[in-house]
């Protein structure tokens, strides 16, 4: 098969030369693209229901599977947050809730949202669906491994949820799982709960490594003809860099999970110093709790960017498509993504300014942390400069993007507070931190996810989502979420510490009662608003407007498949050949306001398109 494919490609390249020669009188080799280096990928096509939809090797199906499972766990995380907010806002109505429950919900909410929802959704969901389509591949390079990756994730989620049903319940040690308290009596779920958490995280890391290898090799080694790295849509750049971060950061999580399980199960003392509990000295000694914090945050900080970078990439593409304008400063955007990714490995201890580590580290980590602000700010400028002099379609997708810019800039600015070591001292471990990270890595990426859902739903299902419902969904979510987290910063200024089960007996906290009630009410509404999306999806699947090909008039390859939704193998007979970047919108002299990536130069010689 590979041999005739090569021939076919050469023939095709020649034929495009002859076609392009007609009319415009240009030299025939201006459309020349090197022949394929690699023979065609041989795909396994499922025949039964099981091989087609369950143990499926098609990256698109795996992407949807990831998306659905991550959303399912995300809804559990949402319900947990409702319960927490009920306790904080209306404790008299939450009589069934003990402090143990509260801390368990806090922990599981955090872990689910960060790892099992956002990471899995961006990389597993969008990554699987979009990478092969956007780089012009038939599938991921190792479809079988890719399938196993999803089912590993499935088992990891199963183990995580199983911890709700074991004696003692799930761990309640905070999502950071700090020892010694994580494995000692006095913390809920310090028995089976924490062990299952460690096992689940290890499974997640293993499963993710399988997927991550696929994403990286597909992007590096399986691009279609003409697709250079600097022609990739920023979505791919974001997912690529995030995956690199994940491959290098998850090892630290794996190691800390292994070591903590050993401390719990075998009685080793990696993280356990001499401890006196209830008048008795425990059989631990000589370990270092701060070592765990270093390992955890060496994972934890890149993790923030594992969530943020795909969001950056996706939102860049959405803004560009819907303002009918090329993304401003594409190369700067790429370097900013790569630079942020690289720097994110040198800032981890800014989570530990008041952890009792050597205070002299503060100087170094404050400096590196604030350096990251520069490429991040550049990205923000480029987003708004893309809007400037654009032709902005004010549809639902664009609304989510604008919502993203507002929440992200807000959360980014408060990040400068917390990264700057002195400013962090009064604010760390207060509600200011909660407000900051929810704004910047909760709400902002969520805005992008929602925008991406409205943007790519037509591709995945062939039908449009309802704009009217979409706008209701957006305003409810954006206004609600903003009114949850913006005022919450001020609780932090007062000094209200985080992870307090109740706090009405302190003089300066009583003033927060009203605000807590308000925040809780907003939280219930925002959560409920998400069901508009589910209703919209269900409704549109049945009676949505058929999307047709390329409904948004976008340039990138995923919209150029011969059938919508794309079939297994994506491209039908022939792989696409790429001649340009994904951002040739509104080129002066062109007939339409977009030039798709496969348009050969000879067709647009009369336009002022810049060489890319």
């Amino acid at each position, binding site marked *: 098969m590979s041999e005739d494919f090569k021939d076919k490609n050469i023939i095709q390249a020649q034929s495009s030369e002859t076609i392009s020669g007609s009319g415009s009188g240009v030299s025939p080799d201006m459309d020349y*693209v*090197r*022949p*394929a*280096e*690699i023979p065609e*990928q*041989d*795909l*396994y096509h499922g025949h039964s229901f099981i091989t087609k939809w369950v143990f499926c090797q098609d990256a698109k199906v795996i992407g949807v599977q990831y998306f659905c499972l991550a959303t399912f766990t995300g809804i559990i995380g949402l319900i947990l947050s409702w319960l927490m907010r009920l306790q904080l806002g209306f404790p008299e109505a939450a009589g069934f809730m003990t402090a143990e429950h509260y801390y368990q919900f806090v922990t599981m909410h955090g872990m689910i949202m960060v790892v099992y929802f956002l990471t899995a959704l961006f990389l597993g969901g969008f990554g699987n669906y979009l990478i092969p389509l956007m780089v012009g591949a038939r599938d991921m*390079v*190792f*479809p*079988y*491994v890719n399938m196993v990756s999803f089912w590993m994730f499935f088992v990891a989620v199963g183990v995580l949820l199983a911890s709700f049903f074991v004696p003692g319940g799930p761990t309640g040690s905070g999502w950071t799982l700090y020892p010694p308290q994580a494995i000692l009596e006095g913390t809920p779920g310090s028995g089976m709960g924490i062990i299952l958490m460690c096992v689940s995280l290890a499974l997640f890391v293993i499963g993710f*490594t399988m997927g*991550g*290898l696929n994403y*990286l*090799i597909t992007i*590096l*080694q*399986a*691009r*279609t*003809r*003409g*697709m*250079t*790295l*600097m*022609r990739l849509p920023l979505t791919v750049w974001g997912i690529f860099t995030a995956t690199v971060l994940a*491959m*290098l*950061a*998850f*090892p*630290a999580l*794996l*190691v*800390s999970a*292994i*070591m903590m399980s*050993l401390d719990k199960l*075998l*009685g*080793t*003392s*990696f993280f356990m110093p001499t401890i006196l509990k209830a008048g008795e000295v425990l*059989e631990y*000694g*000589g*370990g*270092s709790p701060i*070592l765990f914090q*270093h*390992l955890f945050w*060496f994972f934890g900080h890149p993790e923030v960017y594992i969530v943020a970078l795909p969001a950056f990439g996706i939102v860049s593409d959405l803004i560009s498509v819907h303002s009918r304008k090329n993304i401003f400063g594409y190369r700067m955007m790429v370097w900013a993504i790569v630079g942020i990714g690289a720097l994110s490995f040198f800032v981890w201890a800014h989570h530990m300014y008041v952890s009792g580590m050597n205070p002299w580290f503060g100087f170094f980590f404050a400096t590196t942390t604030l350096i990251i602000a520069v490429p991040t700010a550049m990205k923000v400028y480029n987003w708004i400069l893309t809007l400037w002099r654009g032709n902005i379609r004010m549809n639902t997708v664009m609304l989510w993007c604008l919502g993203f810019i507002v929440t992200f800039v807000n959360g980014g600015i408060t990040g400068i507070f917390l990264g700057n070591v002195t400013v962090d001292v009064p604010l760390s471990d207060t509600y200011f931190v909660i407000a900051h990270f929810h704004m910047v890595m909760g709400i902002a990426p969520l805005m992008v996810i929602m925008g991406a859902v409205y943007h790519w739903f037509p591709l995945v299902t062939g039908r449009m989502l309802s704009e009217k419902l979409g706008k209701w969904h957006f305003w409810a979510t954006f206004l609600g979420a903003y009114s949850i987290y913006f005022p919450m910063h001020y609780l932090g200024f007062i000094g209200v510490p985080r992870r307090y089960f109740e706090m009405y007996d302190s003089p300066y906290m009583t003033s927060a009662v009203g605000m807590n009630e308000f925040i809780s009410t907003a939280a219930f509404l925002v959560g409920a608003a998400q069901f508009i999306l589910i209703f919209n999806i269900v409704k549109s699947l049945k009676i949505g407007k058929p999307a047709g090909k390329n409904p948004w008039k976008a340039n990138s390859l995923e919209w150029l498949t011969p059938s919508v939704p794309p079939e297994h193998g994506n491209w039908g007979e022939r792989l696409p050949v*790429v001649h340009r970047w994904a951002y040739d919108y509104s080129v002066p002299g062109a007939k339409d306001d977009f030039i798709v990536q496969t348009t050969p130069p000879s067709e647009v010689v009369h336009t002022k398109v810049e060489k890319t």
Partner: protein
Amino acid sequence: MSDPKIEGLELKPGFKGMASDTASDQTMFKGVHWGKAMMWIFLLSDTFVFSCFLISYMKGRASTPVEWPNPSEVFALNAFGVPVPLLLIAIMTFVLITSSGTMALAVKYGYERNRKMCGWLVLATALGGLTFVGMQAFEWSKLIHEGVRPWENPFGAPQFGSYFFMITGFHGTHVSIGVIFLFIYAYKVFAGHYDNGKKGWFTTMKGDYVEIEILGLYWHFVDLVWVFIFAFFYLW
């Protein structure tokens, strides 16, 4: 292996070549098999796992309040009534490094399509690995016999036992997985799967001797990690 030939692209040496490969379309690493690229990236990730283990070990060793035991005494082996420090470890290291040599030869014969030699050398590598794991089991049982446990250690700091068993155990697991795969691959070589391009069990990719090289990368990595473990545990 000679440089790959890429139609329509001139491959240049040095940084210039790297830059032009990166800027080109289709692939970043020209002529590199997908599986091989994957193995390199996986090994990079695995390097971080072992680095985290070893850095934790250094931190643990530096900050433990009880004194760290003297490795040349703990790991001494009685040969003919004389305690020889590091005797067993020296043999283990020698065996593992030798198996790396046989692995490299297997790759060479594989690319020369010398099925028999390649098969025997893969098998020899597997046996070397198996010997290593066996000797490690012996060393573990000796230490356990002497009272060293993950949670306690009669010679000094309990963290010695914890880190030793955890890190050598994790490395030993890597070796064992490698040994299993070496046996499978030896079978596949002898059965001719790489000569006639038979597809593997879980993949639609055709069998090729490049798989021997990919496994070889893993094996050399495991060997290299051992050198670091050796240096940090036995020589420090």
